[in-house]
């Protein structure tokens, strides 16, 4: 591991000023914030991340979950995944988020991983993690080893000729279906970004994954109040029953009245280069009767633009069936 200076930040302004010395907040960053460390320290051991300075943000007052006056939720950036998953308001009002969090990683890792860190979780593409192999995300311009290589677990939506790395987060898929807002603080003040705008498609700059700039810190995530009578679910399909990344997953937030879908939000995981909001599937279901025929049509719409690779063609059908099953569970009346 490369040597670095470790600093314990005690207030947000100090943390931001420390990070502003960096030229970027993306791959190649010189200053990193550390929360749980479950992604960063792993990648530092592999020399994929080589920050010269690491700012420990665990002492910052960003560790609370608060119910907002409008009924929404404000989640601090260093709230642990396990605390968020078991928070009474999350279990009651946002079960999709609780389920997504508890389907990710292990109990130990969930006790460490933070809300902000999970949003910034890096891909599990084996070439990104292997410094002996070309990877446009890790070393821009070196090429993509995954195209034509080992790509069974990688993305089929939002890919480019430069990168097909999948986003590994479960939490971010649920937050996408819940239309979360990310609160970011920097040297120029605070700004908010909708979660769908937060993540960038790889295009020809796969090393840029989010809109976060140098010196900016995720401080909070807010959720809109839960819509009345909605049901939500996170369904995750993977190679093992537990402690494995998604091959395909679906987060569904649905309101059904007299058998008709009145409001629906859909996001897919494991298949996209970012947590994948499917407006196509939502449009296909809006105002429709909740039945299998319409669910299948929505799934077809969601995967219409899928570009499978040499080893992951199966993901197209798997993702469709995953979404159909999630829709059935979320709209079940009994």
């Amino acid at each position, binding site marked *: 591991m490369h040597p670095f200076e470790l600093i314990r930040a005690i207030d947000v302004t100090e943390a931001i000023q420390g990070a502003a010395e960096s030229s970027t907040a993306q791959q190649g960053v010189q200053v990193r914030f550390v929360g749980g460390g479950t992604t960063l320290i792993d990648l530092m051991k592999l020399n994929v991340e080589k920050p010269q300075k690491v700012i420990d943000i665990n002492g910052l007052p960003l560790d609370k979950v608060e119910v907002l006056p409008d009924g929404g939720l404000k989640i601090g950036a260093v709230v642990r995944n396990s605390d968020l998953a078991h928070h009474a308001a999350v279990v009651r009002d946002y079960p999709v988020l609780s389920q997504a969090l508890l389907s990710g990683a*292990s109990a130990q890792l969930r006790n460490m991983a933070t809300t902000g860190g999970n949003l910034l979780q890096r891909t599990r593409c084996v070439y990104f993690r292997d410094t002996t192999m070309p990877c446009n995300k890790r070393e821009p311009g070196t090429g993509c080893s995954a195209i034509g290589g080992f790509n069974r677990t990688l993305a089929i939506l939002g890919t480019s000729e430069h990168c097909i790395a999948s986003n590994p987060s479960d939490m971010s898929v649920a937050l996408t279906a819940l239309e979360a807002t990310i609160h970011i603080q920097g040297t120029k003040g605070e700004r908010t970004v909708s979660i769908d705008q937060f993540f960038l498609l790889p295009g020809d700059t796969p090393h840029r994954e989010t809109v976060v700039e140098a010196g900016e810190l995720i401080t909070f995530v807010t959720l809109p109040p839960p819509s009345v009578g909605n049901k939500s679910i996170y369904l995750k399909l993977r190679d093992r029953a537990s402690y494995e990344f998604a091959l395909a997953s679906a987060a569904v937030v649905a309101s059904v009245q007299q058998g008709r879908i009145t409001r629906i939000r859909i996001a897919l995981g494991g298949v996209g280069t970012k947590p994948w909001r499917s407006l196509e599937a939502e449009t296909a279901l809006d105002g429709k009767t909740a039945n299998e025929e319409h669910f299948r049509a929505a799934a077809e719409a969601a995967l219409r633009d899928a570009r499978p690779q040499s080893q992951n063609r199966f993901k197209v059908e798997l993702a469709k069936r995953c979404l159909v099953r999630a829709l059935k569970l979320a709209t079940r009346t009994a």
Partner: protein
Amino acid sequence: MSRDKVCKVKTEPEETSSFGHVSRRAFLSRLGATGAAAAVSPLLGLAQTQVEQDQAETPVKVVGAIPVMLRVNGQEHQMQIDSRATLLDCLRETLHLTGTKKGCDHGQCGACTVHINGRRINSCLTFAAMHQGDEITTIEGIGQLGNLHPVQAAFVEHDGYQCGYCTSGQIMSAVALLNEPCGPADADVQELMSGNICRCGAYRNIIAAIQEVRQEAKQGVTNASI
């Protein structure tokens, strides 16, 4: 009680096993040292021996090391440590608490599980210097010979191991699980223990051991928490 520690080179007394013989750990260490000496001694001769003696007497201060106070199993340790030192390496290499094991070193196997303020974490994925003042508990702080924690006793009773390498991590996870939200079924325990890999495949016995302790705790037979 506070002890001032800096990273030392070969200052610890040779470990012996309970049978009075040289332990496996000390034997392996000596093998390594002999190998190194054999490789360099023809060139360095006496000078090398002198360096080794100096090192043995003078604690080496690591450049760029940061001062940190770690509270492990109720005991405070004032140390100078490299910012890169993971909690796992610090526990094993600096404090010589070798009950915590290094498996994958990437948060995938759970062998390094310890408790921070009562919650289980992977000690390989956190820097030791991030835990100033935290209450750190390792397997050495869970129970002792003759006074086993109920989870340890149940692992013995149910044969919850073969080679034993993952066992301290399994036990640390199981002890923490007792205080976590967990359903009553074996499947619920399996899900919450999935972060601890057992290469020997003692899973069934591990689940049986944990379920027995949970049952006893429910009936008030044992005080199965720490």
